[in-house]
């Protein structure tokens, strides 16, 4: 099959609370190639987790998908019936959830939680084959096969996250979504868990969307990086270009706020706060915090324009520099 693996077109997801409406994902378009690793970063409340859940239609009311199209390998996920959706989930897209600590059912053994997933999708496999598959998967993520007989509370945080990774590849999906997969782990364990995730992802040839806000971790683990701000994509770039020559002022400030071992200058933060989704400023949502904001930024919402091959940014100032306005 040709074309990109995942195509998100003009996706909008909003939370409705009485009269208030907060658009957590606002007209987002994105493509992902087979086997590609995409990082999505953004502040808390920028809509990245809402996006992750919406891609599997796991969002719960009051969140609802307003419009858009999410195509994976040609199938429009938003048009699947309930039963089609059930079969689609995990066999095509799997999820490594945010709270890995509470992602496993406390009253079932690891083996039972992996086996029920296989059984829900693969009627053709017998008990023995399922057993062997689980043992093999656990070893692949660096765990002993004996872990299968344990309950979640008997595992450490890193072990639980490894179990979640093993679970994510149990059906060899085309896409793995990892929603802040390491946020609850310490730095050393984070590293090894991410390495494991990258290894198994490469082995089965799945694409990976990794959501988080740890720029350093992203720099080591993804091919492309997308930055979300107030529900919109503002910057999409190959990881190397993103760090060497950021186009969006927000990206520039994100990078300069990273601590660097060579320099001793004080850490630069980004002054101000992300605006409330129910009360966005007119024009570019970032304009109140932007150091280079122009009058036009307060009037027009900048479009996400392709400024260089595979590089897109939503910024009037950057676009002007490329003479694409």
């Amino acid at each position, binding site marked *: 099959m040709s074309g990109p693996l995942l195509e998100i077109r003009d996706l909008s997801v909003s939370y409705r609370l009485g009269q208030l409406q907060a658009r957590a994902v606002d007209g987002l378009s994105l493509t992902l190639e087979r086997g590609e690793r995409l990082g999505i970063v953004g502040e808390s409340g920028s809509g990245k987790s809402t996006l992750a859940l919406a891609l599997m239609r796991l969002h719960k009311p009051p969140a609802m998908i307003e419009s858009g199209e999410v195509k994976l390998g040609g199938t429009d996920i938003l048009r699947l019936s309930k039963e089609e959706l*059930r*079969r*689609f989930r995990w066999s095509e897209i799997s999820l490594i959830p*945010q709270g890995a*600590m509470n*992602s496993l*059912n*406390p009253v079932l053994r690891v083996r039972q939680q992996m086996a029920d997933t296989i059984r*829900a999708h693969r009627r053709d496999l017998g008990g023995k084959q399922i057993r062997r598959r689980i043992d093999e998967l656990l070893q692949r993520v660096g765990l002993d096969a004996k872990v299968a007989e344990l309950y979640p509370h008997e595992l450490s945080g890193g072990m639980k996250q490894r179990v*979640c990774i093993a679970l994510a590849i149990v059906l060899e999906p085309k896409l793995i979504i990892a929603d802040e997969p390491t946020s609850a782990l310490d730095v050393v364990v984070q590293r090894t868990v991410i390495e494991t995730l990258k290894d198994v992802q490469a082995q089965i040839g799945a694409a990976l969307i990794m959501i988080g806000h740890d720029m350093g971790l992203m720099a080591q683990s993804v091919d492309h990086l997308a930055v979300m701000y107030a529900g919109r994509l503002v910057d999409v770039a190959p990881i190397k270009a993103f760090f060497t020559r950021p186009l969006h002022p927000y990206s520039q400030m994100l990078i300069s706020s990273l601590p660097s071992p060579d320099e001793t200058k004080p850490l630069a933060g980004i002054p101000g706060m992300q605006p409330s989704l129910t009360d966005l400023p007119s024009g570019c949502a970032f304009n109140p915090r932007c150091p280079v904001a122009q009058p036009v930024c307060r009037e027009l919402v900048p479009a996400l324009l392709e400024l260089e091959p595979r590089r897109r940014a939503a910024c009037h100032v950057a676009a002007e520099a490329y003479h694409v306005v």
Partner: protein
Amino acid sequence: MTWSYLLKRLAMFVAVVLLAITVNFIVPRLAPGDPTAAVLEQLLSRGQQVEGSQDIVAAYRARFGLDEPILLQYGRYLLNTARFDLGSSISYFPQKVESAIVSALPWTIGLLAVATVISFGLGSLLGALIAWPGSPRFLKSLSPALMVLSAIPYYLLALIILYLLAIWTGWFPLGGAYSQIPQRFDPSTLWDLAYHAFLPALSIVLAGVGFWALGMRGAMINVLGEDYLTLAEAKGLPKGRIFFAYAVRNAMLPQVTSLAIALGTAASGSVLVEVAFNYPGIGYLLYNALRSSDYFLIQGVAFFLVLTVALSVLILDLIYPLLDPRIQRR
């Protein structure tokens, strides 16, 4: 399960029962006065002459061992209780207290325990379905009705049921547990027993179902917000599997704790249901004992109730690690 865990739980059980029967022993003796003297005083105050009242009191004290040192009395009391010798009932004299309890016991277990378990099962299932987002709308509208049911006192409910289904329509018997004392177990006897047990059971089930449903609904809502439910859905599991193995299985845990306590207190808690339906169980026995100031019988029933609560908690302690692997069996 380890032996030390079992021993610890058993020791706890013995300690609780020992403490309870000690309180049972001390409290009557803390009350001022003396039971025999009190009776005599009553007679005197009515203007009756009692010859040699001092001698009578002394004789009775000797007869019941009340003139002995308190520790000796306590020791003998413990020994008798351990042998299930609870003394003679006053109002059913010369029947022994323990035999009165034993003859009332099957009725209470048959009615209350079964009705409580049905109420628990039905209520928990209803509560789980009310909280479940995929269940039909009419189930959700049951919630206020259940709240009302749980607020009506069970004895009031019993009276309403009695009026509607026994007095007004005459479909069910007014009371009692049988038409004639059952001799053997054949289908018609069982039918007769069920026919008599239906109304009291119905009032217990209805009075309890709201409590169980509301508790389960709360627990379910908590569990539904857990990450492992999101993951279960993401895994593409069938709805039934998510409902039972992921949601209900976890939400049940606090309910089971309540069930053990409810079973233990069912006998005392539903005294008035047995009274309203003239049902010859422990509650009815206790009611009669209280009315006739049958101290030995009251003490005996109280001891028995403590025993059932402690026993059901002991059983819960032993099975709980099987339900929730996080509880350690040490």
